[in-house]
């Protein structure tokens, strides 16, 4: 193993060792502030450890890990998400009793899994990352002892997620049975090489993997767990699930499907197209029926994953791959900012409540008059979700439109337009609720850390909505070194 390859493993090594250090501290010098500080330092150091190799991309460190611009970008997103969630969780858990330290260790572990996922180039590292991410996440969900809903959410996610992991494993086994390989790069173009009988098994295998991934991304028709889990899980954990977990799995899926050439399988592509349409429609329509902010956000995320799936479909068309990856990356970046911001508002609203999170639409009535700044932030978030200009979400939506039109996927575009139209309805419902007369005059305290998270994210949301060029250029440069 050369020095360069070792360097490529540096982020993983850094984060792992800091997790160990944190564990020692928790064991011997239990102090919440200290634990959280170590978490923050760990995340920052991990981010720093990526810098030395920027000029040497792409690097293959062992057959398992492939570090390229693509991986780098998504690692950045994962770290950003984890950092924000750390701050939110600190405010959320601070007054909830003494045993909160381990939560932050789980968060780092989960983040480690996500980092492995985004750079994994092999089924082994895929499963490793997936399980590391998932198992820590179940525990995080049930960690805060706020009523039984968290347990319900965790259990639901545990069982269904376990089943989907099994699907993925079995799919990988089927592919291995035909090809005898597990590395993504080695599998490139596999559907052209094997005989007709093998083709069918390959298709079965990839469909199963695809189903498992769709479950994790909460794409319809595998979305049924989403609202319950979003609603039941503590707000910061939901934020983590919605951003880091889904983002990492999406990155992996995009790499898996493009490198191995699975994307060229016509039935799979048609299936994806169908899934995108159903997700857009189901997510948006079901969100109309909700009176619970977290559930609305859950259904809206189903729809957003549907928009994102458009990128998949376009990537499968000739010449569309680079553009699709670029579009997906920006869309996901905007989705990260927006979703994190949305859940930081929910977190801030929920901190005072020790039983369940504050998620009823009624609780948000009059927010414009009780806490104008918080309401303005939430309005910006919802407009970003709706894809209205001045926000990053608009540029993301614009990217999706531009690749869809470029690929001449008119039917898909029609669904995106209809979906966006329906979407406005429920986003505006929340905004309208906030403009009503307030029900109570109870003051909403804004804790420092979460407050800053909201400020930073709002500024980025507007900045990259008005002046997106820095991110677009960055993505453009990083995507060159894909593969």
């Amino acid at each position: 193993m050369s020095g360069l390859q070792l360097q490529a493993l540096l982020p993983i090594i850094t984060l792992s060792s800091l997790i160990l250090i944190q564990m020692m501290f928790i064991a011997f010098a239990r102090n919440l502030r200290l634990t959280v500080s170590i978490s923050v330092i760990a995340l920052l150091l991990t981010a720093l450890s990526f810098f030395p190799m920027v000029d040497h991309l792409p690097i293959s460190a062992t057959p398992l890990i492939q570090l390229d611009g693509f991986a780098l970008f998504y690692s950045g997103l994962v770290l950003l998400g984890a950092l924000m969630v750390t701050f939110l969780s600190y405010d959320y858990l601070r007054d909830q009793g003494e045993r909160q330290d381990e939560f932050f260790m789980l968060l780092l572990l989960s983040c480690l899994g996500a980092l492995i996922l985004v750079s994994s180039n092999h089924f082994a590292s895929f499963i490793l990352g997936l399980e590391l991410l998932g198992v820590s996440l179940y525990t995080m969900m049930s960690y805060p002892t706020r009523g039984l809903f968290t347990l319900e959410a965790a259990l639901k996610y545990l069982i269904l997620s376990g089943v989907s992991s099994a699907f993925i494993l079995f799919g990988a086994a089927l592919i291995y049975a035909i090809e005898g390989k597990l590395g993504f790069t080695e599998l490139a173009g596999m559907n052209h090489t094997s005989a007709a009988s093998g083709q069918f098994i390959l298709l079965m295998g990839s469909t199963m993997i695809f189903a498992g991934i769709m479950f994790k991304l909460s794409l319809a028709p595998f979305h049924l767990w989403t609202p319950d889990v979003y609603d039941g899980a503590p707000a910061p954990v939901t934020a983590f699930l919605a951003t880091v977990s889904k983002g990492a799995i999406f990155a992996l899926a995009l790499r898996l499907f493009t490198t191995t050439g699975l994307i060229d399988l016509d039935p799979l592509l048609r299936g994806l197209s169908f899934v995108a349409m159903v997700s857009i429609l189901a997510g948006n329509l079901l969100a109309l029926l909700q009176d619970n902010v977290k559930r609305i956000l859950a259904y809206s995320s189903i729809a957003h994953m549907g928009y994102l799936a458009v990128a998949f479909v376009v990537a499968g068309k000739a010449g569309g791959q680079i553009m699709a990856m670029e579009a997906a990356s920006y869309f996901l970046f905007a989705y990260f900012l927006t979703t994190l911001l949305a859940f930081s508002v929910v977190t801030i609203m929920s901190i005072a409540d020790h039983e369940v999170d504050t998620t009823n639409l009624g609780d948000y009535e009059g927010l414009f008059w009780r806490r104008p700044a918080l309401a303005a932030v939430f309005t910006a978030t919802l407009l970003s979700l709706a894809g209205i200009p001045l926000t990053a979400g608009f540029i993301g939506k614009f990217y999706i439109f531009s690749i869809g039109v470029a690929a001449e996927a008119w039917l898909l575009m029609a669904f995106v337009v209809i979906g966006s139209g329906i979407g406005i309805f429920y986003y505006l419902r929340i905004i309208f609720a906030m403009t009503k007369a307030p029900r109570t005059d109870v003051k909403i305290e804004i804790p420092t850390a979460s407050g800053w998270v909201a400020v930073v994210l709002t500024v980025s949301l507007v900045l990259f909505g008005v002046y997106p060029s820095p991110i677009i250029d960055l993505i453009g440069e990083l995507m060159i070194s894909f593969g």
Partner: protein
Amino acid sequence: MLVIALIGVLIAGGLIAWLSEGWNRDWPKWVSLVTIFLAAILIVPMFSLQPLVHQPDHSEWLLIYDYPWIPRFGISFLLGLDGLSLLMVALTVFLGLVALISSWDEIDKRPGFFQFNLLWTLAGVVGVFVALDLFLFFFFWEVMLIPMYLLIAIWGHERRAYASMKFFLFTQISGLLMLVSILALVLFAEALTGKLSFNYFDLVDLPLDESLSWWLMLGFFIAFVVKLPGFPFHTWLPDAHTQAPTAASVLLAGILLKTGAYGLIRFTLPLFPGAANDIAHVAMLLGAIGVVYGAIQAFSQDDFKRLVAYSSVSHMGFVLIGIYALQEITLQGSVMQMVAHGISTAALFMIAGALQHRLHTRDMNKMGGLWMDMPRMGAIALFFIVASLGMPGLGNFVGEFLVLMGAFQVDLHIAVFAALGLITAAVYSLIAMQKVFQGTPTQGRSLADFNSREVSTMLLMMIGLTLLGIHPQPVFDMVEPTLRGVFTLTSPAGTWLGVSP
């Protein structure tokens, strides 16, 4: 920098107005007033600008700014000002002032945020009128919606939730269709020219495939006709207008509707001249139906604001006919109608708002005899009602007359049908006048007449309409280069004579 400064002033003014609420609840409206005056001051020097003759590509423009914005997509911050834009921008700022005055004492809830939304609506609309990059145009097109939505949703009347939602949905969905069209146009243009660009000048009159051009045109057409509003896409308008607070009604009727007509003239016609000719007949028919249908609907309303709203549908129908008759005099007539209708309808909504503020109802059956209580308001209302029904000597007459005269040469049946609108306009307008201001006054009612602030605003608008009516030539001259450009693209065989009635 004038145009950028103008938008900047409105944006900054909005923020300051919002912040100033924290110190004193009376400050925001003063901040707003100062902002609008500053904006007006910035507009004055624009009238003395000369065309950029030394720039051969833009020789008809008064100002062009071009800064890179998102180079990845060939998107630039491209603003341009020509006679048409200038006229519309000036109208925007003027009606902004009217909107502010009309809501001077009306807003007691969150005045700072109200002024913020008011000024940002103006900023968005000014942006729409000067943006020449298609992406930037779409950007402003959407940006102007949000503050308007909030104005209706927060300060509106009893059914505001429904009305504001409907307004937003209609404009947003049609806007998305336009976005798809813009993107498709840009990408097909890239295939033709090898250059990815959202620049208006790169996209005008490309040799696109005919059926393709037709579909792309349709995306733009629908977005603009929804905003105009043209029949059958007008249904959002009566609700939005009726429920909106006075200031928002003034802005909606006065300028937001004009963005639709402006878009048709600026984008739909020059970008797709061939397809525009194909749809011309249908568009004129829609316009004529709008004229008559709007008038009939207006006639059957009891709600004064709703009546004015339907009369807008009727009057904007003339604009649609004028644009798609594709004659020089009809184009000129449409622009004149846009300006005159903007002013007269803004005034009528201001009167409607004043009535509601005093009587707490919009139902005309509960009014009557108000002239006795408020003679000043009655006289002013009579002036604007007569203006809106197309009395010769006032701006609206010039617009409608030119449109009908030109349309007569293009399609006799449509012109005759649309001319019915003039008669019905007289009927519903005069009935409204009679129901509200004439008849027996209710005893023991004491109502405040228009005060000097309101009277002076009204006076300004009356002078404006009269000037447009008796000496419209300056407006014709101002927009002539723009319309000539559109005309030469859409009717290559026609000759441009220049209108001088």
